[in-house]
């Protein structure tokens, strides 16, 4: 039995679509329901729907053998696991943004950074040698510079429309992001046969996609 943790939402949907194409479908997944566990004993597969930030936790601890989760979550959670494949979908990027047409004084110390991703922000500015005061927020991060809560924000940017609508602009990109297939380090080895087959199928599928 292979347990796969999926980050609830779009990533779960698109990730499941790949598995479905490869013959690992569990029809109950496609019905509207509040269930969080879906399994097919014959195919030896079980999907677990969890919050994105919990996917790396499930996989690191071995509660799930595989997981599909955004690179953003992986960077922020920084867990001990294998990051096997870039699945290509869910593309966006981590960026630093500030109010448009306002010069940010990077010499001011510390720089106030509003973000949902304190670890990523901290290590980014640490590498740049800029002292920061991280202001951890749960949502609507774009508000922070407008209200004067922070000088810049670090957030996920997909199209950039949200930023523009709020009068912000990207100053610098930190890292490109997309969905990743991750694996528990021990399962990867001890469930080798079954896992290898699945991973190879996904890999072949991705290469096919690329060629098309």
């Amino acid at each position, binding site marked *: 039995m292979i347990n796969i943790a999926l980050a609830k939402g779009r990533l779960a949907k698109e990730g499941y679509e790949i598995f479905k194409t490869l013959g690992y479908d569990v029809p109950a997944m496609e019905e509207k329901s509040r269930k969080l566990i879906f399994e097919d004993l014959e195919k030896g597969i079980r999907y677990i729907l969890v919050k994105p930030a919990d996917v790396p936790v499930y996989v*690191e*601890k*071995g*509660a799930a*053998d595989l997981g599909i989760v955004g690179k953003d979550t992986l960077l922020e959670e*920084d*867990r*001990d*696991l*294998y*990051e*096997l*494949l*870039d699945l290509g979908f869910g593309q966006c990027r981590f960026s630093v943004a500030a109010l448009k047409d306002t010069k940010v004084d990077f010499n001011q110390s510390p720089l106030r950074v509003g973000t949902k991703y304190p670890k990523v922000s901290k290590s980014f500015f640490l590498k740049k040698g800029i002292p920061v005061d991280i202001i951890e927020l749960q949502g609507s991060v774009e508000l922070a510079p407008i209200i004067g809560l922070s000088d810049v924000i670090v957030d996920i940017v997909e199209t950039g429309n949200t930023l523009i609508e709020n009068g912000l602009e990207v100053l610098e990109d930190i890292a490109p992001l997309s969905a990743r297939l991750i*694996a*528990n*380090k*021990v*399962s*990867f*080895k*001890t*469930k*080798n046969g079954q896992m290898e087959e699945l991973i190879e199928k996904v890999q072949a599928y991705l290469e096919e996609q690329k060629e098309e």
Partner: protein
Amino acid sequence: MEYFKSQVPRGSKYEYYTYFEPKEIITSQLKDLFHQYGYRQIAVPTFEYFELFKESKGLLENSAMLKFIDPAGDILVLRPDCTIPISKMVANAESEPYHLRLSYVSNVFRGNSLHESSATEFTQGGIEYFGDDSPDGDAEVISMAIKSLLVSGFEEFQIDLSNINFFKHSLEEAKLSGDEEEEYKNLILSKNFTALKAFLISLKEKKRETPIPDSIIRLLEAMPTLYGRPEKVLSKVASFGLDPDHFQHLTRLMKVYEILSEYGFEQYLYFDLSLINHFDYYDGVLFQGYLKGHGKVIVQGGRYDPLTEAFGRKIPSVGFGINLDEVIQAMKTFNQKIESPYYTDYLVLYEDAQRKEAYEVAESIRRKGFVVEMNPKGDLKKQIQGAHTKNIKEILVYNDQRLELINLVADDVVKVYKNTFIRSLDDKKRDLATVSIH
């Protein structure tokens, strides 16, 4: 609510007998095993200088150690590891050790993984073998790791072997900068194939004094796939046309594998040449053991000659550690029954006036090797309820010469003479001994 009355500090735990006794059983089985192979028991200090562990780079995040300051102003830590202090002890010993075999079972305090920022207290058992730099020494320690898993009751497990020098040699051939090495190691640790490819392309494009040979680039790229059955891995590596100096590390590893096969352990063994360890002191064979279906490393070890050298005397050293709390967790994962093998055979109840005689009866039963508890009689119904929850098999109610024997398993009551009863214990003892030893 005052939190300290019910909460515990992060990383500490109370071990009730339902948890502690099974762990103790495994501990004593391990100690017996170590003893049978000539490993002498030692203990190292619970706290030591922070510098001792800080100096061993790569061991631990500083934040994963529990630090405190003694009245003299020195920073101390609760031991995050036993190997380092044992090496210190052996390196400082008066005479050069000759095939010195040491073992320990101690609690250590550290983050369980590199990513844990707070320390956890857990029990670690292990051996350290000094003064033998042969492949036989490596094989002995690995065989002990396998035996440890076997005596703990596991059968489905695997041990991954590598020679860290093969990995180190590959990096030296590539002549990477410190930062590049660090990045490469992280990519290997996370088997991040996508980023690895991009990283190697950037390496190739970067201008450097001596370009990295193509075969080495290919080897660096293949590294995370170099695992599996030894023959398979070896034939994969053979295709890279490495020079003999580089390949010798695998010859050594193969030798260790051959010895372990002679001992009959080949079914457990796999090679993983990308196996690297956060502990910086390893130099030579390196191994990790996992149970199938349990997502955590249970045993790990390897050769670490440079550690004793750092303490002033280079002594060949190889060892391993097993995390006993992880063993208990794994048993839970497999729904293996974790029951304490201890129980009380008899509960003797007495009235005030017969305390002395009851005590004598209890003592004679104990002398026969049974476990006896004694309570003032009080409410018999309550006593029976209590005995049930504690899994006590029989209650003896003391009434002069005649004993009332309440069998809680068969649910019956008989009256017997004291002497007859005590004599009957010999037979019972014999019966038990043939069925099981508890």
